[in-house]
């Protein structure tokens, strides 16, 4: 469900499968655990293998944005499938400049 990769101060989390309220709680714990111990300069969330997402995914990204700000790092979300981008477009997250 989650694989991570860390090099050159960049923590990449490859999210797999479905992001709903249930899955978001587990993803949040895993991603924050890794980010807290590694304190990366950049946290990159790779959505390339996400098949389903409801608005819980927006909460997950907003929360990680705040977490990274707290530890002085940045957030980027990459490889967002089109049908999932629709939900991000409704959220105002585009204004934060984290979506790629």
């Amino acid at each position, binding site marked *: 469900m989650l694989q991570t990769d860390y090099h050159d101060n960049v923590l990449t989390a490859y999210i797999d499968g*479905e992001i*709903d*309220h*249930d899955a*978001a*709680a587990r993803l*949040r714990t895993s991603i924050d655990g890794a980010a807290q111990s590694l304190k990366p300069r950049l946290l990159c969330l790779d959505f390339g293998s996400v098949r*389903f*997402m*409801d*608005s*819980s995914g*927006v*909460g*997950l990204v*907003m*929360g990680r944005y705040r977490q990274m700000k707290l530890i002085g790092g940045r957030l980027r979300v990459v490889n967002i499938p089109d*049908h999932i981008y*629709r*939900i991000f477009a*409704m*959220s*105002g997250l585009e204004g934060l400049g984290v979506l790629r």
Partner: protein
Amino acid sequence: MKTKNEMKLSFPSKSCNESFARAAVAAFVMNLDPTVEELSDLKTAVSEAVTNCIVHGYRRGAGTVFITAKIFEDNRVVVKIRDRGCGIEDVKQAMQPLFTTAPDEERAGLGFAVMQSFCDAVRVSSKPQKGTTVTLEKYIAV
């Protein structure tokens, strides 16, 4: 309008049932041969409504979520998602995008906005201390 098919479902308000609920509704409408997008839209809307029952209606406590789904002759799918939870004091306010009563739990406040965007019609009826019913309507193109 005559009903072509219908189903009823009830399950405990556990977050692990969110994926079950949307998959069950998706399986029910499968013989209408929906497009991938239509199916994804309906699953997303059902997921939002069921999550609302669990997180807000029952406030993460024990309860039962009820779903009924009907397919009408004009290929209209009507899904009702109901809880007997705390109800919503002000439905109009609750439906405003970005309004949330649970910011600490990273709820984005987009549930109703997503339902409205992904369905053809959304109705909400709620009584404080009695519960909430969300009705989602979506046409599946023939």
